[in-house]
């Protein structure tokens, strides 16, 4: 454990040096990430422009949901999503050999190699946005709310991470499916709608969406004081199940890895 922490601290430093070297790129990344944050706000604004409640969620509550989405996705992008972009490239070009040879867990190194500092402003913007709309609704938060929110945000991100890892592992067999990360970016954006919306689908597809919607809906409901015990239990159980599954599936997939270069 100590070793992994030390490696991660090193990675944080290395990523920071890279950022200082490619400053222009960093600036354009910040803008891009802020654009997407602003876009998710604008699209929610457009969607709620002419309606008062949707699936029992009021306009302001939907705005809080959008803000929490920016926070959760912000953290996810800072820590993970750059690594998933790298993932398919690593597999496709046969660079996975080098990673497998290192005396460290391969899933760890694939998941934590890149840190995307450029998403930090979006994350901070999300926090301000949530605070503003909670005030407008008239909800004041105590320390317990914030603690519970932080815990379930982490659990939500673990769930999101596991779903992504599970799906990108498929590229071990189908290495040209590198656009699966593009799909995951879009798929994840389905988490910015309330869970109740998906409960309206009464087909089997519902099981595709529900895990993802819990990622953002559960922490949001904690802030809105509307959370149910079952929401919290389900989020935790699904996070645990998906994480174990992603780990097992990765170990299984590695048996089928055939290098491309060497």
């Amino acid at each position, binding site marked *: 454990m100590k070793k992994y922490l030390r490696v991660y601290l090193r990675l944080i430093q290395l990523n920071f040096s890279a950022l200082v070297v490619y400053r222009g790129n960093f600036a354009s990344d910040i803008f*891009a990430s802020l654009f997407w944050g602003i876009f998710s706000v604008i699209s929610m604004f457009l969607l709620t422009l002419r*309606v008062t409640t949707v699936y029992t969620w009021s306009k302001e509550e939907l705005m809080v949901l959008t803000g929490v989405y920016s926070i959760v996705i912000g953290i996810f992008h800072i820590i993970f999503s750059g690594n998933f972009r790298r993932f398919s490239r690593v597999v496709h070009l046969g660079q996975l050999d080098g990673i497998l040879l290192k005396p460290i867990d391969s899933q760890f190194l694939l998941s934590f190699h890149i840190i995307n500092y450029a998403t930090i402003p979006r994350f901070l913007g999300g926090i301000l946005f949530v605070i503003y709309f909670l005030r407008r609704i008239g909800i004041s938060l105590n320390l317990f709310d914030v603690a519970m929110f932080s815990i379930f945000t982490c659990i939500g991100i673990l769930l999101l991470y596991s779903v992504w890892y599970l799906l990108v592992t498929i590229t071990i067999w189908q290495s040209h499916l590198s656009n699966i990360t593009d799909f995951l970016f879009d798929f994840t954006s389905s988490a910015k709608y309330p869970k109740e919306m998906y409960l309206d689908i009464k087909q089997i597809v519902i099981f595709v969406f529900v895990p993802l919607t819990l990622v953002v809906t559960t922490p949001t409901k904690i802030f809105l004081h509307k959370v149910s015990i079952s929401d919290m239990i389900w989020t935790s159980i699904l996070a645990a199940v998906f994480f174990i599954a992603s780990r097992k599936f990765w170990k299984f997939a590695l048996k089928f890895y055939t290098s491309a270069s060497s």
Partner: protein
Amino acid sequence: MRYVRIFLLYFEHVYQYRSRIFVWFLIALLSPLLFLLYWKGAYGTSGEIFLGWTFSRVSLYYFLFIIAGGLLVVHVDEDAQGDIQEGNLSTYLVKPFSYFWIKFCSELPWRLIQGLFGLIAFLVLIVTYGRHIQIQISIDRILPILLIIILGYMVSFLFKMIILLCALWTTDISGLRQLVDIILFIFAGFVVPLHFLPSWLYRFALFLPFPYIIYVPIQAIIGDMSLFELMKSIGIQIAWIGILFMVYRYLWFVGMKKYSAVGG
């Protein structure tokens, strides 16, 4: 004739990437259906008709969007990295073909195949969920509608070619591309039918080329437009094509003087 051959060659090339196309198709499928699901809830609370649109009309709008998103949204700007940043443009310049038409021939197969996927999804959705949806297109409108779709494609293609050329100045256009994506999302009618926008924003949007890429073609099919309006849209599309083409030519000539292959 030689461009037809190039087109067919690229068609074969695209066919190799079937599973990749399937994933792109899933992306095109996902967001219209999510928006539709959202509106279903909104309609639940505010009655059958909303701003003059019935729910079956909104459904038809987003179902058609699945086809239009695949068929009409051109992605040539994605080639900026390979063509300009990595200098592949040089290999095109020494060939006796116009870069513009090579890009046209390489892009069209992707769009046609994705449009086909979209059409299949559209038919499946109509059969399973849309029995109450009716489309009426009279014979005399088929030609104008087809023309609007083709012109919409040209507006989209020219606009994205201009974005691609911007890389001659900035090398990396990934930030610009994301901005353009967002503008398209809003003003081409991805998020909400433009009709649902506040009226000042709606009027402003119609001054931009973006509604003529997707929103207007879909409106033409839904059957909202009189023959006069169809003709008017065609006129505006042609005007936009003219403007965008001139901008493209200008950028091309200025850009070629500036272009230096990086590593090529």
